[in-house]
């Protein structure tokens, strides 16, 4: 690894009333990559995202973005540095149109000058929802809402996109469309970290897999290597000697 | 020294009544998540009904409690089913404003029917008093406190042991799960409202016996209930009792030692401060949703 990693997580832990949701997780994300974090339900994937984006404060450990410590920083400050997040359960601004939703991302997000109009258009085009621009967000389908979620995140001009299960609950056609969108976003220079359940899409799109189980990292490597790892298979299916 | 004790004793009597007057508000808030700004009106309806019936029939006002509670139970059920249920799924602000609108209408009707003047209910033992260890107790106040505590206990037992109480608690904790188990949530909401209205009415009678009242008081009793709930916690008679007693003591102490016109300042100051200091602990969901 020549360049410094865009995101570095060191010994990150989070306890809820003594219950360890994340325990000493460390990893580094290389700029320009697509990394997927997988793991069974309750493994702590969403908590990990919440810790990175400042939504929760960690019990211990450090998060560094572009070599800058962001641990415990306010969520909006982290967004200003260039980290964006797409929620698993889409949270559109319901009373606003698709265009207005994405425009909020373009107006705010990463600090620095921008052409709001052009950034909004580009976000909608990258996420393939430009044709829905004038529709009110509360009329969109689940699949379209996911795209809106991604478009709004991208419009913040983020360098790092954390996408929480963008393919969950989508049919195969919609999943393929979403994978295509993620590829295009990466090609535009954005680093992506996914939490995803849908294994075929994970295997197809990711450069690297991180596996969480019960709050701890149990595997890290290229998709095909990790998928064959006996510990990963045990975590998903339960090991025979349990 | 004895002044302090007397003040505290007065505060406890007042507090018991505050608790009874707030318990219905607390229940509705805990189960329906509706801030019922017409609660004070329900309290006053109880007081006026007791005034009218006890004068017409020549009975002790406290004896009208069962009849008044029955009337308000029915009215509360209908009120919830016909009006509040329609706004409950919208925004909390919507349901709150709805109850406020109803409060204004009913207050206006009350002024037409009963005039805006102060009224009071005077039982036969109004001026009797006795003293224990140098502290004076009015017979009215003691009977009012006793009635409050008995009613609160009844409600606590009802919620804890009756099938209705179980369904109400289940609905409050897991509305969806209760629905999946075959609970008719609208019916339970309406029953909760009915119980709450009945206890508000009973509180009104007890209040009417010891304090003068007028249609304009409704806002005061609603705010009192709100403060009690913030002080003591949502949804339980025990919380209401704790909050009520605290508020009663704070009020009498302020009136005695700061100035007779200051209890309202203290009350609102307490309300604001508590909302700020303990929003999570006391009011579980103060921060949860933005609307």
């Amino acid at each position, binding site marked *: 690894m020549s360049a410094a990693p865009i995101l570095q997580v060191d010994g990150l832990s989070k306890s809820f009333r003594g219950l360890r949701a994340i325990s000493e997780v460390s990893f580094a994300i290389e700029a320009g990559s697509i990394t997927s974090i997988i793991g069974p339900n309750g493994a702590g994937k969403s908590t990990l995202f919440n810790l990175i984006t400042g939504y929760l404060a960690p019990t211990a450990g450090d998060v560094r973005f572009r070599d800058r410590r962001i641990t415990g920083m306010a969520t909006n400050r982290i967004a200003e540095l260039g980290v964006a997040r797409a929620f698993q359960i889409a949270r559109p601004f319901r009373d606003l149109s698709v265009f207005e939703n994405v425009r909020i991302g373009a107006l705010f997000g990463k600090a620095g000058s921008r052409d709001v109009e052009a950034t909004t258009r580009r976000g909608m085009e990258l996420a393939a929802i430009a044709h829905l621009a004038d529709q009110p967000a509360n009329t969109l389908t689940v699949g379209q809402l996911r795209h809106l979620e991604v478009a709004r995140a991208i419009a913040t001009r983020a360098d790092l996109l954390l996408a929480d299960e963008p393919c969950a609950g989508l049919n195969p056609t919609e999943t393929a469309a979403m994978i295509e969108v993620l590829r295009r976003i990466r090609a535009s220079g954005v680093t992506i970290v996914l939490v995803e359940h849908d294994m075929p899409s994970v295997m197809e799109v990711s450069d690297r897999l991180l596996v969480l189980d019960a709050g701890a990292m149990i595997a890290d490597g290229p998709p095909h290597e990790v998928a064959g790892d006996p510990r990963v298979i045990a975590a998903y299916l339960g090991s025979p000697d349990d | 020294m004895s002044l302090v004790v007397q003040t505290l004793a007065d505060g406890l009597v007042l507090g018991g009544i505050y608790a009874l007057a707030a318990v219905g508000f607390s229940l509705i808030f805990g189960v329906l998540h509706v801030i019922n700004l017409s609660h004070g009106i329900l309290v006053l309806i109880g007081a006026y009904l007791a005034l009218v019936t006890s004068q017409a029939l020549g009975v002790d006002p406290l004896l009208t409690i069962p009849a008044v509670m029955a009337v308000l139970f029915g009215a509360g059920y209908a009120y919830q089913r016909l009006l509040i249920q329609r706004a409950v799924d919208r925004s909390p602000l919507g349901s709150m404003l709805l109850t406020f609108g109803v409060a204004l209408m009913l207050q206006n009707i009350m002024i037409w029917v009963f005039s805006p003047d102060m009224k009071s209910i005077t039982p036969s033992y109004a001026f009797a008093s006795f003293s224990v260890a140098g502290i004076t107790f009015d017979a009215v106040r003691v009977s009012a406190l006793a009635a409050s505590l008995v009613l609160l206990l009844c409600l606590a037992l009802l919620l804890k042991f009756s099938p209705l109480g179980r369904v109400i608690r289940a609905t409050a904790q897991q509305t969806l799960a209760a629905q999946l188990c075959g609970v008719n949530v609208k019916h339970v909401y309406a029953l909760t409202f009915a119980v709450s209205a009945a206890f508000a009415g009973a509180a009104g009678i007890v209040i009417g016996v010891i304090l003068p009242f007028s249609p304009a008081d409704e806002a005061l009793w609603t705010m009192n209930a709100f403060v009690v709930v913030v002080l003591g916690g949502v949804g339980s008679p025990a919380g209401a009792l704790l909050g009520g007693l605290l508020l009663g003591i704070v009020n009498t102490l302020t009136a005695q030692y700061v100035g007779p016109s200051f209890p309202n*300042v203290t009350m609102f100051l307490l309300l*604001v401060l508590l909302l700020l200091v303990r929003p999570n602990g006391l009011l579980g969901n103060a921060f949860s949703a933005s609307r």
Partner: protein
Amino acid sequence: MKRSPALVPLLIVAAALVLALGPFVLPPFYVRVGQLMVYSAGLAVAWAILGGFAGYASFGHAAFIGVGAFAAGLVENQFSALAPGLLLALGLAVGGGACAVLSAAVAYPILRLRGTFFSIAMLGVCHVCAEVNNNVDFFQGSMGINFPPLAPASMDPADFFFWLYLAAGTIVMLIAWLIWRSRFGAGLLSIREDEDTARMLGVPTERYKRLAFVISAVLTGLLGVIYAHALGYITTDSVYRDDTNLNLIVFSLLGGMGTLFGPVIGAFLLVFITQVILGRLLDFHLFATGLLLVLLVLGAPGGVLGVVRGWRVRRRAATAPAE
């Protein structure tokens, strides 16, 4: 949104100029109604900067009317030798300043509360201010304060204050419009829609909420100062009014919550209904306001503008070819 940006302020100023002709053509009763309409509209818009744009519906904005009015009165009476115009300027500066200080101090803790908790806590703030104003002798709340007359001798005071309210209301409206179309305004809107998501997108939610709160409070306070001069003599009860606290919500609800012009429409309508239609039926006011509130919540939560928008959407759907 597709209108050219200069059109809206031109419309606002043009409407204000037309209204300014009122005193020349209307009988005195309607000038007084007009006064109340324009004053209410100004308050409604000031309230909506926080309550409508950012979704923090205050139930205690009368606090700022009261604090502004009393601060202005107390100071103006120390400088009563000044010319009326200077005195008003002084009063506005002091009243606005007092509201700025109070709101900035209250904003930090109280804006942590959300939804109805914020509303009720603001009611508490209003009552604390009112009671302190009433019971601490220094503020002369129970005794009352006189305000020196402002209107030139040649002019009917009713006309004078109508124009003064109109000027103030127009300025408030223009400020609201500037906010509405700015980045700040878009941020407030996103806070109303979903505060957590807004923060995730980089909206500095805390700072924006506080700023909106202070702006809204100061504008309300300035209108309160003018109101006090129009009354000429105020006590605690005449400025810290719970019906004001309520009406400010009803204006927005009636016209259209979270819109730019809704509060103005709502204020004009409600004042017209209560003063003109129900003018003689004073005993009926509470009932009518209550009924209106119930009907609005149940029947038209979007207010007048919501109903109009609904018609438009339906008509478009009817004329557009099926998909």
